[in-house]
Structures are given as C-alpha cells and as structure tokens.
C-alpha cells in the first residue's frame, strides 16, 4: 500500500513536468509566431521572441501549479455544483465519513452534496488534510446506510492512496490547457480585426487546433491512465478492508448498474474521480479500453471473491 502511495506521488510529479514541457513548447511556438509575423522589422534575427515566449509560459505554468495546490479542490467542487453538507439535513452521511476517517487515521474530510438525481460520488484533494468527499442527492436517496458506508469507504481510499492528488493535478492542468487553447482562438479573431495577414490567422488557428487535439487525444488518455481501472479496483479492495463489509459496496454497485441516468454536471476531467463512470455507461468489451472504470459487473465479481475469502 505504501508503495502505491509513493508511486502516485511520483506520477503526480511526472505528469506535472510533462504538462510544463508542453506549455513551454506552446510558449516557444507563440514567441516564434510573433517574431516571424508581427512587430519585428524585416531582417532581424528570426526567433528572438522565443526565449520571451518560453519565459512567459514558464511563469504561467508556475501560476497554474500553485493555483492547483491552492484552490484546485474548490474549483472542482464549484464546477460540479457541490454544496457543503448541512449537518442537520445529512447527519448520517457526516457520521459515516467521520467514522471511516477514524478507521484510517485520516483527518475528517469536508463533505459536499450535489443536487443531482443520478447516483454518484467522488473525492478530491491535494492531501488527506485538505480533501473533500462529494455525493449526489440521488446516491443518498438510493442507498441505505450499509451501502453508503461501502461507497464512502471507497472514496476515502482514493484520498488515503493519494489518487485524488494525482487526479486533481492532471484535471486542473487539462482545464488550463483548454483555457490556453481558447485564448489562442480569441487571439485569432482579435488579430483579424486588426487586419493582419491571413497566413498569420491560419497559423494561430492551427496552433489552437493542435492544442485542442492534444487535450483530446493525449491528455484525455493520460487522465484515464492516471486513475486507471486498476486504481478503481484497488480503491474497492481497500475500501472493503476499511469497512470490513464487502456486502455494502457490492449491493451499492448493483444499484449503480441498474441506473441509466447519466450525470449532467460532471465533465471529462472529473469523470475519473467518480465511483461510477458518469459518461459512458458500462459498454461492451470494445469500449472498455477507453473507460476510466472497469465494468461494474467485473468489480462486483471481484468483491464477491473477497467476500468469500473473508467468510472462510
């Protein structure tokens, strides 16, 4: 288990470094564009704005990383539309989270609720000391105490294993890259209004398109790998180890399996954090490769094997 935690911390650093490199490359490209096409007089050495582009991009990257540490958790919660759980309205939920945190020797995470009829839950946080568990009102309506305990144990395991830190970094960085691409698009329109050449416009549009493609085809899969299907199974296993009752989680996953409503407010970035993939719902084997989660049926089967192991 400690090995898993160390590996997650290492991967966080690795993905952040990859992102920074990508960002620096974009900075260099923009610098190159600027020096080649705009203010520079004819004949000046090409690419003298490249170091400036890299410096600006590096500054932005540092800001992005600091921002993730400082307010990434809050951002994810806001995007999901989560509200702090009211102790008078959700006493059972809060009690269960407190109890499970005691069992892992973790500080009690903040507990949030999203008003959404689709049952789901996710955990975020840079560290166990600054973590939050979020459940949808649909989950609360659907699960009994034992099932809720199983789901919450799964989420706390993500926090304990530092899955949440890894995912938070990867998701926020992807959000930032999307922002950057959007800024490039706007630059394209802005420059057109100033009557710049068509070639320059095309280049900026291509740069923005490339960035968007990178987000879609490179960073998207990284998210899926970041909290791979194995990590979900691991959280299932260590969640059961924590609450010593596989039946609760098994029965909760069965109910999720029967549920068909997709979750509206969660996007690509937060999908990987959920207990049940809110985007694709349990498709056949072909789509499996691209899923953030193993099929629920496989997870239930694995838990049932554990249940038999425990009772023997």
């Amino acid at each position, binding site marked *: 288990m400690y090995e898993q935690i160390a590996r997650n911390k290492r991967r966080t650093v690795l993905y952040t470094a990859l992102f920074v490199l990508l960002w620096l490359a974009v900075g260099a490209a923009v610098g190159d564009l600027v020096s080649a096409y705009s203010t520079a007089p004819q004949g000046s050495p090409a690419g003298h704005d490249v170091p400036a582009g890299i410096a600006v991009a590096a500054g932005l990257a540092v800001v992005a990383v600091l921002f993730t540490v400082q307010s990434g958790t809050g951002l994810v919660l806001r995007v999901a539309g989560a509200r702090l759980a009211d102790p008078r309205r959700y006493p059972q939920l809060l009690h269960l989270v*407190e*109890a499970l945190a*005691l*069992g892992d*020797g973790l500080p009690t995470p903040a507990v949030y609720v999203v008003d959404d009829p689709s049952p789901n839950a996710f955990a975020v946080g840079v560290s166990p000391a600054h973590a939050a568990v979020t459940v949808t009102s649909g989950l609360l309506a659907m699960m009994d105490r034992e099932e809720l305990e199983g789901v919450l144990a799964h989420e706390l395991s993500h926090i304990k294993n530092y899955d949440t830190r890894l995912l938070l970094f990867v998701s926020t960085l992807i959000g930032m890259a999307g922002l950057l691409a959007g800024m490039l698009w706007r630059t394209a329109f802005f420059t057109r209004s100033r009557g710049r050449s068509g070639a320059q416009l095309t280049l900026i549009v291509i740069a923005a398109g490339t960035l968007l493609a990178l987000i879609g085809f490179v960073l998207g899969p990284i998210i899926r790998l970041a909290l791979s299907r194995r990590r979900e199974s691991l959280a299932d296993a260590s969640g059961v180890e924590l609450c*010593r009752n596989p039946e609760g989680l098994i029965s909760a996953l069965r109910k999720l399996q029967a549920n068909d409503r997709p979750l509206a407010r969660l996007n690509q970035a937060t999908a990987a954090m959920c207990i049940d993939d809110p985007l694709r719902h349990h498709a056949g084997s072909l789509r499996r490769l691209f899923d953030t989660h193993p099929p629920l049926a496989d997870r239930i089967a694995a838990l049932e094997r554990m249940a038999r192991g425990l009772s023997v």
Partner: protein
Amino acid sequence: MLAIVIVIIVVLLVVLTAAVGFNALVRQRNRTREAWSQIDVELKRRHDLIPNLVHTVKGYAAHESGTFQAVTAARAAAITAGASADPAAVAGAEHTLTRTVHSLLAVAENYPALRAQEGFLALQEQLTATEDKLEYARRYYNASVRDYNTAIESFPARLAAAPLGFQPGVFFQSDPSERDAPVVDFIAPTRPLAG
C-alpha cells in the same frame, strides 16, 4: 589514518541508525496514544448521550426501572474504568454498557409513539454514529498497536526497547468474550441484517 576515518564513519553510521530507529519507535508509540485518545473521545460522547436516552425513554416507559438502573450502573462503572485508561478494564466495562444500552433500546422498540419521536430518532442516530466511530477508532488503534508491538519486538530494537521504556501496547477488544459480534446492526433499524 584511514583506519581512524573508517572507525569514525562506522560509529557515526551506528549512532545515526540508532537515532532513526529510536525516533521511529517514538512516532509509533505516539500514534497508538493518539488512536487511544480517539477511542476515549467516542467513549465520553457515548457516556454523555446515555443520560439523555434514559430520560427520553423514561417519559414513555417509566415502569421499566430495572433496565434504567442497569444502564445507569453500567455507565458509572464504565466511567470509573475509563479513568484507569487500561484497555482491558475499559473494554470489559464498555461491553457491559453496550449490552445494557441495547436492552434499553429493545425496550424502546415496544413504544411506537416513542420511536416516532424526533428527539429519540436523533438520539438513536447519534448513538449509532458513536458506536460506528468507536468501532472504526478501535480498529485503527489495534492496527497501530500491532505495528508498534511488531516494531519493538523486532531485532535489533527489542534489545533496547524495554530498557528505554517502550512497553508493548495492549489491544482494545470490542468484546472480551465473543469477538466480531454485529453489535451495530441491532440498534440500526434502517440497516438490513447481513446481506
């Protein structure tokens, strides 16, 4: 000259290893103490909830005085045992308290008006939550005691642990006689029995 350097390096390494090992033991011992204090917090909360519960049930079932007396006596015994901070004594007294509280709740089951009362429901949820937390705090405490005991009994720490005052920790058993009893299911009607 070289020999002296080697001797110094070896001595430094030994001192460093001993210091790191000693600090690890201190850390683990403190973890077991912290885990114990978590158990203590939950036990105290339960002791505080019980008079309220007795008072509420009394309003509906005043004639069940035997049950009330048993609960009150068990609570007093548990508080006395708690002052000793000896896990074995605390476990015994708390187990008796758990049994009497559950028989009190069984009495309450016979009074639908009481069961429907909001104050009683809130008390019951708090009691269930406290027992849940107690159970989780107990597991964490026992896991840290196990790790700590393994550390002080392993070579070479076991040579120095006892002289340096590292005494083995005592496990906290939920029930000294019958372990793994599903105590929580009994008082949580919302929770289906196993399965």
